[in-house]
């Protein structure tokens, strides 16, 4: 079958083409109407191809690594591709009425579309790259699109947030690039598949690994590199925030996962793994505490992202430990991917729903929530359902993730991480309680409303995160396609 083999190339090419078209022929309705179904079809192809024939590998231009660049779609990549397609697809449809192109067009209305499509193409390129330098280029494109989306409305606050983000992102890029250069100097290849076969415990590799990890952690907004995230994600318009918070940090986390589990499992030292876990744990606690103290809805949701990112990093200590094969490592690895994906759905749904509440109220103070269950029941429900996922309560993908991580923590005897995981759930309830409780208050004052069809979209996205918890056997098996050996045997 030739079609599934083309799916990796199409998943980058289609949104990229849409981005160009959005510049020359700004017809968002038409572009979204064609691109989103087309991409969903491509995703179906990719899933089908991976399920039937294992990982899809496409050597671009017919050049094999190490000279050429490979696009690889295994279970992990495809899971992120699909999550991205569903999330961005929904976001774009919700964005249609919010970024109209009129005769006297605003810049935001015009620029959103090419940037959103560019971001989509760049994210897919990250997920498909089998080469560390190619990843660098792709992730730079993610950063560029993100920067522009943050500054989209061009107000001082937003440009400032974009610049602050740029400082962290630049530092991250440079550290990553230097690490890549050192790795190349040491091994003469940057292909992940080839790197995996080399011994990698020499000093140059370890320094390179440190630089790459630090750079990616800065881009993922891992504590203590988190300061840029809340102003950037809260300042952007809601559909942009949804993509930024749900997907962009996942791209750099995905690279970290690839780097440690696929490329250099040998390089991981116990101290480094515990350190990453400790930073993740601090992010969970600190991010949640800051989230509790926010008085603006979008700020609160953005700080929640800081906390939720912390869970992702617990995979490193939970999958590490000893040189023996460890039965729980697969659970920890899969759990972190489940967390990444269900958080993507839930956080995008939450930002979109909050965006609707803010549109109706005309401001994003807490009182925008008043009476929401009565005024806009579907929006309130979407918020409630996505909150369930963020708290990691059943039935949701968030719970499945939490259960897998918890099981790994107990099985490997690392009870401290188990305590953090559980504490994080309670803290999430603490910061989400206030807005949700206000939805039950009677509403005072005048509110606009949002068409029901629009309200239904975030709800559908939120329900996806719940479905992921109920129908989790199939995605679990799918993720194991082409799973790296280290995800079975443990790092180190």
């Amino acid at each position: 079958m030739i079609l599934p083999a083309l799916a990796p190339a199409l998943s980058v090419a289609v949104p990229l083409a849409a981005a160009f078209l959005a510049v020359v022929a700004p017809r968002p309705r038409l572009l979204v109407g064609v691109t989103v179904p087309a991409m969903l079809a491509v995703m179906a192809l990719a899933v089908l191809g991976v399920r039937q024939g294992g990982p899809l590998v496409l050597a671009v231009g017919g050049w094999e690594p190490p000279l050429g660049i490979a696009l690889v779609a295994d279970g992990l990549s495809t899971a992120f591709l699909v999550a991205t397609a569903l999330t961005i697809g929904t976001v774009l449809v919700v964005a249609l009425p919010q970024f109209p192109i009129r005769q006297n067009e605003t810049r935001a209305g015009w620029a959103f579309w090419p940037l959103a499509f560019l971001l989509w193409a760049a994210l897919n390129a990250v997920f498909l790259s089998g080469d560390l330098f190619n990843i660098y280029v792709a992730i730079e494109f993610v950063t560029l699109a993100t920067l522009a989306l943050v500054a989209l409305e061009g107000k001082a606050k937003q440009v400032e947030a974009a610049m602050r983000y740029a400082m962290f992102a630049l530092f991250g890029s440079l550290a990553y690039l230097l690490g890549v250069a050192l790795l190349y100097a040491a091994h003469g290849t940057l292909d992940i598949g080839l790197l995996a076969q080399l011994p990698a415990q020499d000093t140059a590799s370890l320094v390179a690994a440190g630089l790459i990890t630090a750079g990616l952690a800065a881009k993922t907004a891992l504590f203590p590199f988190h300061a840029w995230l809340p102003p950037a994600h809260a300042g952007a318009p809601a559909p942009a925030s949804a993509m930024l918070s749900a997907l962009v940090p996942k791209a750099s986390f995905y690279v970290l996962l690839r780097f440690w589990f696929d490329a250099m499992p040998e390089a991981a030292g116990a101290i480094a793994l515990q350190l990453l876990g400790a930073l993740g744990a601090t992010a969970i606690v600190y991010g949640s505490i800051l989230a509790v103290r926010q008085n603006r809805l979008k700020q609160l949701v953005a700080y929640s992202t800081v906390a939720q990112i912390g869970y992702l990093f617990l995979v490193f200590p939970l999958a590490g430990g000893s040189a023996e094969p460890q039965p729980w490592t697969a659970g920890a690895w899969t759990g972190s991917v489940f967390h990444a994906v269900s958080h993507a759905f839930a956080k995008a749904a939450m930002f979109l729903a909050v965006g609707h509440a803010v549109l109706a109220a005309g401001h994003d103070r807490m009182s925008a929530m008043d009476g929401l269950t009565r005024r806009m029941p579907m929006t309130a429900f979407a918020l409630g359902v996505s909150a369930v996922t963020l708290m990691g309560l059943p039935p949701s993908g968030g719970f499945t993730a939490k259960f897998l991580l918890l099981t790994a923590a107990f099985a490997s005897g690392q009870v401290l991480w188990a305590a953090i995981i559980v504490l994080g759930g309670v803290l999430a309830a603490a910061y989400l309680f206030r807005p949700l409780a206000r939805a039950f208050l009677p509403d005072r004052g005048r509110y606009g409303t949002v068409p029901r069809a629009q309200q239904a979209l975030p709800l559908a996205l939120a329900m996806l995160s719940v479905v992921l918890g109920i129908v989790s056997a199939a995605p679990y098996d799918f993720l194991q396609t082409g799973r790296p050996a280290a995800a079975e045997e443990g790092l180190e």
Partner: protein
Amino acid sequence: MTGLDTATLFAWCGAGLIGIGLYGFLANRHMLRRLVAFNVVGSGIFLVFGASGARRADLGPDPVPQALIITGIVVALATTALLVALVIRYADLAGRATLPEDEPGDDGKE
């Protein structure tokens, strides 16, 4: 002198540039200066990268780093262009080109 020594020299120069750039990045608060510093660091890394390609004397010069460096330069250029645009916009709106938390002890209000 052999090619190996030239390569080492380039590598040390690259490292030196990275150091200078990092200093500039930390010492300056004006965003344009930071941007220049970022480019200095980037150039240093490219130099190190290029040197790594020349070190394999036994295999002859390695073309891959050169291709990667060119790509990297394009990416850096694009990033720089976008950031310059942002800084100009910010300076127009806010009347300064430093981030607020960097204000005290500023050297950027020129």
